[in-house]
């Protein structure tokens, strides 16, 4: 990284991995560090800004072509290394992504496939028995989040205005839905899934836990301790799931309130499935 201030993602990656040296062989926009969590080996991964990136559309921490494929490699290599191990290392996605890269080059060379490779790597890690935890320390936007973190067994989010989850930035969302930006903001106040703030997102029941810690507290030892404890709790919660299938799938996301229709659709589908 250049002289620019470190991103939340970079700062939390450093704090949680005890500032272990980042692994080499990855683009500067992808930081991978091996550390530990509760005496288990753990790999921490963050996408960070790189103002000198070869790809101009991916210099602010977006998940672009290079980040997508490198994420896939970072996760895939951990799975391959632990293949014969009974105790699979924990994988923690430290999430601070303003989105995917928007550009002509990106589309032309198949950015959707790069993000698919990243999402697949995380999903396969989870299905191979790696506990995967997504820690949202800043923005978790759209395709960036789908590629980096949304396949985790458990999701944890910090608090504060800088912590946001959404499918699209406000300007673009306004254009696509043929509204004004003010109109989008107005709706976001009343329609929970359209909101950008983390409290609204938490009310959808998708988080394992929301912490009273803000993104800029990565150098605050008690805040770091709070986050480490939550990661440990998430790990214990994954391992406490009743059977192997539910230790390795996303079913815990449907146990919260806030997505009643998602639950009801599945309940009725199950009734009709076998005929």
């Amino acid at each position, binding site marked *: 990284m250049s002289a620019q201030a470190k991103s939340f993602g970079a700062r939390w990656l450093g704090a949680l991995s005890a500032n272990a040296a980042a692994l080499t062989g990855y683009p500067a926009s992808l930081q991978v560090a091996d550390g530990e969590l509760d005496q288990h080996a753990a790999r921490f991964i963050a996408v960070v800004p790189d103002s000198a990136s*070869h*790809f101009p*559309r991916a210099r602010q921490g977006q998940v672009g*072509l*290079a980040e997508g*494929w*490198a994420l896939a*490699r970072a996760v895939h290599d951990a799975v391959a290394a632990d293949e014969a191990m009974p105790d699979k290392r924990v994988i923690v996605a430290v999430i601070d992504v303003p989105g995917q890269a*928007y550009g*002509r*080059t*990106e*589309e*032309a*060379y*198949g*950015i*959707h*496939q790069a*993000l*698919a*490779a990243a*999402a*697949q790597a995380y*999903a396969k890690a989870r*299905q191979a028995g790696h506990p995967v935890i997504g820690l949202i320390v800043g923005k978790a936007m*759209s*395709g960036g989040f*789908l590629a980096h973190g949304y*396949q985790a067994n458990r999701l944890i989010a910090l608090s504060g205005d800088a912590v946001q*989850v*959404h*499918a*699209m930035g406000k300007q*673009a*969302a306004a254009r*696509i*839905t043929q509204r004004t930006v003010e109109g989008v903001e107005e*709706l976001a106040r009343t*329609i*929970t*899934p*359209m909101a950008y703030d983390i409290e609204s*997102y938490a009310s*959808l029941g998708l988080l394992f836990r929301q912490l009273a810690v803000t993104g800029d507290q990565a150098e605050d030892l008690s805040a770091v301790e709070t986050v480490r404890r939550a990661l440990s709790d998430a790990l214990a919660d994954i391992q406490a799931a009743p059977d192997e*299938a539910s230790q390795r*799938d*996303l079913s815990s996301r449907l146990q919260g309130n806030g*997505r*009643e*229709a*998602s639950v009801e*659709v*599945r309940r*009725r*589908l*199950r009734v*009709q*499935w076998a*005929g």
Partner: protein
Amino acid sequence: MNTSELLQRQSFVELSARARVAQLLDGGSGRELLGPFERLTSPWLALQDIVTQSDDGVVISRGTVDGVDVVIAAIEPAFQGGSMGEVGGAKIAGALELAVEDAANGKPVVPVLLLETGGVRLQEANCGLAAIAEIHAAIVALRAWVPVVGVVTGPVGCFGGMSIAAGLCSHLIVTREARLGLNGPQVIEQEAGIEEFDSRDRPMIWSLLGGQQRHATGLVEDLCDDDVRAVRARIVEAVQSGDTAPARIENIQAFETLLAAIEPDVLAEADKVRAAFEQQANHAGAFS
């Protein structure tokens, strides 16, 4: 092709989702799940005074294709741009999750996904995004047992988080009319500027994101005509194949090598993109 063949064609692109399903399944084998009479409508659109649809734009049907047990998930292009809301997304994710359970219990069902979608329905933003993550998870889980077949024919194309779902399929079938890309043209223009991407330049868009180009670069497996029989014939072949784990998903190294050769400051042109993929394929046999 002669004139009589042309006249016998029936367009797949022009069919509704439910009509597509009826054309693909063996006669009499279809059974729609959570059909429109279930009245499972979007809880979020109504709050915004937007007219709902009683199937939320997704048709789920079990049945057989040439005797193979399948579950088809067809997205209706004419409702809200084929966008994924909470209900429609849960219909697809839930059906795939049940297919995972069946496959694990020795009852394989092959999913066929008809992906006409702009991605997340922005009026249900985070519910759509969450459902798409669940669809991704189920596709990857299913591929341990069965092929997962994706079909993009147009008119909408396949964008957003659902283009990632397409990228996860073991077998992708497209027509020349299809487009496949992560970001919709208007969104790129909004985010990156019209010099980067002119959303009204249709020849440029199809030259880069169109079915022919995606096939030429190995990002989809099959290109076929917009004809019901042709599309069905490709699906018949695909559902009978094993999971081929195509190089476009698995060969990380080949793509990373390809990336190093890209000059991002030069506007991408279709022929140069093809040449770059071909060179890589010749070098490593990676993409075909």
